[in-house]
């Protein structure tokens, strides 16, 4: 690590990769809202008829006066949140990511982002975590949409604790944020004490042969792949890029410079996602071979999250193969 970034945190403890603790990120959102509700009276929670699914019921039960049911009307909800923000509130709205990012994209762009209001968008059931519901409800485009809109911040926490911390951190940011989390329990790879700062990537595993830059549930997959790489004599750095926008350009440039090859891993379309965001920095700072692990321009389908991830090529073995390709290209330079 260079001295320029003293805050770059180490992993607090090596997560157990074999049999990790499993916890829902949406519970992190729900508990984060309760944390906030206790701390500040200006936090308001809105929901579009999905209280249980998004776990905002935790907040609703404790703070019923600050909980607003909007019904099935996502566009309305986005703009109501904007109006609340105009009166000084910090509104958190929640619905499925597929709807938050697409159904109300215009409202997010014009009313929320152009006005730069502190509206906090909780995109639940992000990625393919809503498995059996199929393509319509799986959200694999949020990063591309949100990061193309000025003033928006895009956060993709990797586990329960990080989602909880991201939720709390979002309230302190006077700009609009989008937080993407999932439905199914996913491995816990951080702890309550792990630092979290919006826009500041966490290096969760050190190494300088190759860097795997991941977000969301793919941080765990990246760690699994890194462990296997180690047995093959490759020291892989794993970077948890929980904030896609503003992206941590220093962490990326450093990874490129120090590792010489990069793999990105995300549960999202390859077009406009984390991989693209990282590549934009790499090509302008220190070009190195890159491989992108992502969903390749296809809709989802019904199935269990795990089998879908395997089918779409975004499990640890896919990260591993991408790493080998990147390393081969690095060696061939």
């Amino acid at each position, binding site marked *: 690590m260079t001295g320029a970034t003293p805050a770059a945190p180490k992993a607090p403890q090596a997560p157990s990769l074999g049999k990790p603790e499993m916890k829902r990120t949406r519970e992190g959102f729900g508990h984060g809202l309760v944390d906030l509700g206790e701390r500040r009276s200006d936090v*308001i929670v809105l929901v579009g008829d999905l209280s249980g699914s998004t776990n905002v019921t935790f907040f609703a039960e404790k703070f019923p*006066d*600050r909980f*607003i049911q*909007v*019904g099935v*009307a996502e*566009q*309305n*909800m*986005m*703009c*109501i*949140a*904007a*109006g*609340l*923000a*105009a*009166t*000084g*509130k910090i*509104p958190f709205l929640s619905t499925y990511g597929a709807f938050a990012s697409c159904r109300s994209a*215009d*409202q997010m*762009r*014009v*009313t929320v982002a*152009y*006005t*730069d*209001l502190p509206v906090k968008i909780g995109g639940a059931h992000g990625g393919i975590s809503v498995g059996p519901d199929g393509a319509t409800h799986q959200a694999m485009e949020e990063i591309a949409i949100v990061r193309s809109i000025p003033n928006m911040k895009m956060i993709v926490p990797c586990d329960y604790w990080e989602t909880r911390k991201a939720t709390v951190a979002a309230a302190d940011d006077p700009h609009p944020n989008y937080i993407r989390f999932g439905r199914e329990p996913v491995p816990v790879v951080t702890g309550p004490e792990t630092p979290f700062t919006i826009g500041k990537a966490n290096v969760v595993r050190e190494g300088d042969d190759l860097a795997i830059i991941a977000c969301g549930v793919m941080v765990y997959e990246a760690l699994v792949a890194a462990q296997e790489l180690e047995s093959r004599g490759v020291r892989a750095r794993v970077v948890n890029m929980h904030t896609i926008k503003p992206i941590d350009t220093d962490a990326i440039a450093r990874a490129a410079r120090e590792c010489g090859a990069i793999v990105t891993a995300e549960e999202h379309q390859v077009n406009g996602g984390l991989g693209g965001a990282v590549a934009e920095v790499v090509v302008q700072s220190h070009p190195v071979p890159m491989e992108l692990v992502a969903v390749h321009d296809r809709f989802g389908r019904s199935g269990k999250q795990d089998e879908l991830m395997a089918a779409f090529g975004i499990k640890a073995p896919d990260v591993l193969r991408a790493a080998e390709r990147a390393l081969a290209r690095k060696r061939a330079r």
Partner: protein
Amino acid sequence: MPRLDMTLQELKERALFVRRDIIALLARSQTGHSGGPLSSADFGTVLFFHEMNVNPGRLDDPSRDMWHFSIGHVTPVIYSLMGERGYFPLVDLLQFRQFKGHLQGHPSKHDTPGIEVSSGSLGQGLSVSCGMALGSRMDRVDRRIYCVMGDGEQQEGQIWEAAMFAAHYKLDNLCGIIDYNRKQIDGDVQDVMGIAPLADKWRGFNWHVIEVDGHDVAALLQAFEQARAAKGKPSVILAHTVMGKGVSFMEDDYKWHGIPPSRDQADQALREMGTTLDEWTERLERFTRQEVAPGPRPTS
């Protein structure tokens, strides 16, 4: 003191000033909308110079009423009202839609202080206003929220999501105003996509509906009073207006929805309103300070 105390005659004359401003700024910019701003000028004047408690000298005044134009394209009337009311110097109107000015084609909060929330994509403003109304009620702020909508805009589905929400939460501090000029870009509203019976639709959504001649200032004053008195439900004022009102060759012609007058046409329009383009432009240029622009002589 935020609230002004103007006579009926002064309000009418101020509305005429606003119309002159609209024409003069469009003549200068040679881009922008003519029809809707002119149809909105009378109720806009009643809002800004009588009905609303606004404080251009202190934009974050916690007791202020909040206003929001869901029809962002009527910026010529919004800016004319703001300039006349003292939000910024009137001379700024001459930089409408110019790169160097602070008056964007559609309202932008960060370019034009006093705009509460940016707008321009139709159908969103009533929802925004619902949020303002609910947030104000949560804080127990005695404030009213005014949302100006278009009649063509009633075709947007989100309007009705917001209508449902406001009635459900009994937002009686919310007052919608619809500029019912019966015209939209592509033609007559009834031909493009009929919205009638509009009053019945709003009643059906459990709103207090008031219909009024949107160019009758005295009637407008009463309409706003009536809306203020309605409790337990939000109010909407259907202001029956004429697109392009006040300019003979623009009135009731949908072709003037989205275009400005040429300089010659503007001069003709202003002569119909008792001045000339040069004279009115010079008036705007004189006001380089942020103030409530001096109004017409009460007895002139």
